[in-house]
């Protein structure tokens, strides 16, 4: 994935995916330390729901937890790429989610997209990036 400043992005890409927000939180790895079906609030900005969300959920229950934590409803197309359930090169799968979300905008399939990356069996790392077409 190539990131650039606004000026360079306009030169390099016909329809760049503009990064509008980043949230990143670590969770405790201790099993008894927290309610495992909730996540620390990521402080996502208010605004319209994304057209596409690429959620890094290598196990099916994680997608349910993430949909709830991020407030993603039925209007959002979740993991049109197939997500980590169809390809999970572990340490690249998170970046792949952000890349797939960006591509949805760059190809005109979405105006707003969300990418999510995680690490650890208990969703201990959660990084969310929202993007939009300008």
């Amino acid at each position, binding site marked *: 994935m190539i990131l650039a400043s606004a000026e360079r992005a306009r030169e390099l890409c016909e329809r760049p995916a503009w990064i509008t927000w980043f949230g990143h*939180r670590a969770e405790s790895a201790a099993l008894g330390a927290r309610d495992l079906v909730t996540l620390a609030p990521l402080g996502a900005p208010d605004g319209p729901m994304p057209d596409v969300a690429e959620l890094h959920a290598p196990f099916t229950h994680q997608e349910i937890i993430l949909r709830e934590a991020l407030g993603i409803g039925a209007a959002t197309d979740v993991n049109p790429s197939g997500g980590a359930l169809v390809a999970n090169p572990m340490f690249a799968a998170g970046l792949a989610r952000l890349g797939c979300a960006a591509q949805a905008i760059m190809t005109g399939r979405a105006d707003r997209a969300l990418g999510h990356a995680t690490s650890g069996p208990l969703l201990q790392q959660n990084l969310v990036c929202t993007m939009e077409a300008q």
Partner: protein
Amino acid sequence: MTRQPVAAAVLGVGQTRHRSKRTDVSIAGLCREAVDRALADAGLTMSDIDAVVVGKAPDLFEGVMMPELYLADALGAVGKPLLRVHTAGSVGGATGIVTANLVQAGVHRRVLAVAFEKQSESNAMWALSIAHPFSTAVVAGAGGYFAPHIRAYIRRSGAPSHIGAMVAVKDRRNGARNPFAHLQQADITLEKVLASPLLWDPVRYDETCPSSDGACAVIIGDSDAAQASQAGGRPVAWIRATAMRTEPTMFAGKDPVNPAAGLAAAADLWRKAGITSPIDEVDVAEIYVPFSWYEPMWLENLGFAAPGEGWRLTEAGETEIGGRIPVNPSGGVLSSNPIGASGLLRFAEAALQVMGKAGAHQVPGARTALGHAYGGGSQYFSMWVVSSTP
């Protein structure tokens, strides 16, 4: 339009007492010891920290995969962004630079950098000897890899054979002034070093870094946070410039004695810091010297001396405290080597010097200092310049 970076400064520094085996603490406890000292040094608490960056060398060095996940609680990172950095032996330096960048980019106000190694948990020699695809297996640890490059340096520069031993004596005596240093050898002599067993020609036992358990923590803040510290009577170290460069371990034309990536990083660093003559404008340098001969080699790579001339500074005593360019007054990597932390220790010790808090190993009047780290097969280089004024 390019935005100007936010000014950033080191607000606090903490490190553990480095030892062969810290059996009194877990990896988490080791890190927490350094973190608590850094917070106390900065007069802050965990709630003042916006994000945590953790660095360590290969996971095989302890046999704990992705230790940052298990460390989230101990590092005070729960509910905050937690990043892991990994650039082999230079990782401590890279961790300091990533942390500085998060502040300079205006993303966070105060960020905690933590780097560690608990070498007693595993065997670094073994961990460094795995066969990588399409590469020559090292099979003899770091010393086996670096010794031929040292021999090439000696042949090229015509340096007399005792220079390495001189570096070892200086660094170990400096280490004896630093209560955190692993090796405390105030009585070491040139004769003793020269009489110690040859491990990898020309590197003798006493010219080699120890295997240490240890951690280092550094808190970096923006200019408002720095001014708040100063208003509370706490000195800060302003980060004037950072630079990082990388090259492959091996490629046709690689010069492992004077690597191109190190030269490029140094040029970028001095340019950003507005320094034209490093030896005249830098008061003290903490340079990553795991094997004694790397002092003259890196003095040249960094531009403190012309190629082939670095050993003359060492021989003339100019790298001692009181010399033209004191190198490793803390005792350096030759006195303490918790690998992942060693780079951040260099950066932190540079900061302590310009904060005037280096205690018995303080270089009098130090205002501008270099912190330096390298890693892998002389392929990752990271460095910063800190000053007592912005």
